[in-house]
């Protein structure tokens, strides 16, 4: 089982993840229609690029936009969740050892304490995101089972990762579950709302181009997000 999950399944899940998300990006861009979207994408590449980068950039910074500033609780749990969710899998020491072994290269690695803090951060903020969904009527009305499903598959690798980290129960069994959960996440990403891993950049970039090209970007001071 271990050999299968760290062998063929490992490569398969990475392939599905990267190829799948690349296809999502290509389909998104091919589906843009200057006439229907009413944005002259091609005619004003410079203004479009500037608008797109501003739109993406400001939103990647905690409290970088008015929306983030007026909802500080959400902003904190949102960023704690996302920062941990992106950084830990990429830069965890154990993961980089696998990377080195499989592909012959690795990234810099996280200080183990920081890795712990970030992982617990993901867990705690996920719980708070769930509570927020239940507590706030304006979020409750939008929430479907699918939203919880997405959150569950996103958090599963972190929960199982912590179980392995603290050697709770049968280590080798939990390690298998952890690897499987991670691979499931990779495989599902292109086909679910998790595709926002790339489509966030597309959607934000598109709206940035819209404002940058058509809605005032070439007309005085750019929009303050």
């Amino acid at each position: 089982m271990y050999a299968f999950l760290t062998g063929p399944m490992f490569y398969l899940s990475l392939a599905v993840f990267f190829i799948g998300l690349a296809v999502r990006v290509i389909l998104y861009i091919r589906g843009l229609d200057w006439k229907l979207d009413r944005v002259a994408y091609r005619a004003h590449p410079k203004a479009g690029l500037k608008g797109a980068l501003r739109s993406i950039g400001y939103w990647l910074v905690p409290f970088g936009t008015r929306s983030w500033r007026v909802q500080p609780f959400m902003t904190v749990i949102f960023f704690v969740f996302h920062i941990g969710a992106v950084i830990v899998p990429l830069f965890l020491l154990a993961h980089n050892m696998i990377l080195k072994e499989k592909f012959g290269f690795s990234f810099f690695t996280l200080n183990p304490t920081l890795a712990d803090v970030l992982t617990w951060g993901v867990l705690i903020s996920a719980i708070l995101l769930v509570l927020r969904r239940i507590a706030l009527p304006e979020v409750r009305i939008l929430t479907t089972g699918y939203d919880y499903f997405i959150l569950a598959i996103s958090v599963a690798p972190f929960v199982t990762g912590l179980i392995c980290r603290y050697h709770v129960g049968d280590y080798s069994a939990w390690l298998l579950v952890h690897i499987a959960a991670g691979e499931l996440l990779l495989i599902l990403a292109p086909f679910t709302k998790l595709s926002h891993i790339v489509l966030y950049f597309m959607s934000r970039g598109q709206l940035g181009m819209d404002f940058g090209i058509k809605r005032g970007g070439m007309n005085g001071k750019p929009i303050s997000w």
Partner: protein
Amino acid sequence: MPEGTLCNKQPIDTDEQLKALLGDKGGKVYYEEMKLLEVDQEKLQDTIRKTMKSRIKTWLKICAHCGMCADSCFLYRINDCDPKQVPAYKVQSTLGEMVRKKGRVDNAFMHMAMETAWAKCTCCNRCAMYCPHGIDMGVMVGYMRGLLYQQGFVPWEMKIGAGMHRVYRAQMDVTPEEFVDTFQWMVEEYEEEYAGLTVPVDKEGADIMYTVNAREVKHYPEDLAEAAILFTIAGEDWTIPSSGWELTSLAMFAGDWEACRMQVESVYDAMERLKPKRMIGTECGHAHRATVIEGPYWAGRPDGKPPVESIHYVEWVAEALRTGKLKIDPEKRIKKPVTLQDSCNYIRNHGLKEITREIMSYMVEPGYFFDMAPNKEHNYCCGGGGGFNGIGLYRPQRNKALITKRDQILGTGADLVIAPCHNCWDAIRDLEEEYEIGISWSFLKPLLIDMVIVPEHMKPEE
């Protein structure tokens, strides 16, 4: 497929049809017939398939249901934070459902969608600024209005408005002759006060081609004279086109994209015919949006621009004051508390936030200008945008919506609200009528007329 005689899927293309619909006071028969109107589900699905591309598809799919858009919506806030007013919910429960059900929706659903599209959203696009994914729910509601219009589920006044553009190339039944006559008559009214006042019609190669809102011709003709006076004082080389003079587009509010194209092409034709250096439109927000921002796309112009440089009236005013073409008598600057209404259509959606404040710096005595909170691109809709002002069926909802602006104005302590936008101006007038908070409201033109220095050669002979 049952269709009513008044309420049906056919656009209004003749004056007779217009008169028949106008004859149905308040749309009584029209709305009765709508209750029996069948949904052409196949056509709905087919239209969605052909016109809903990756942008809107992605928006609908990746919405994280986080609810961060809720507080951005003034209609959500003013309706006691009703969860059904959350922008994402409004879109998911209407357009989202149409898509998920592949167009298989019924009459009751379409009634609900119509109310959502015209009474629960003014397409102010404020929510787009608060969604982390950059989902513009105003754009999606605008898109849905097109689907609803195609199916005949459109408020009575909107159907009439779109029909007016189709028949008259104006939002009201004003013919080119009536337009020119009214303009000339109004100018004559003032020519004794302002020597040399004229209105050049169809002059080729002028610096400025001026376009208006048909309401000015029909209900506020002084506005036309004021425009003429200010252009003349500023020494501008200007003209009006005898056709293609209508800047507005109720067709845009209605979601009648074909009528939008017809309307805006009439203005572009005038530009091509008269070859002015610039087009300047009157103090109207949605009209600027329709003709300058969205119009080029309806007309299929790949650069997204009208045939000649086109600017909003506030841009001209700022320029004229900056360059000294118009000079304000410092004694006559406004010396009472003043605030400014930021029109969604050219502030949030066309970046003119600094221009209008520059104008305030010239017109208002320092210390008397008080900005609303929030303001600029984050300002709230006046409460009557996107057609909301004009729909009798949704008047109670509209009146409630005005409370947001009322409280924003009260928060500034201003006596005077400057509203360089017809829709905002109307909404503020209505909120004063409804809630009597003791404010006055004005376009820029009458205020400027009272404070600009009239050159000697224009002063009447004693």
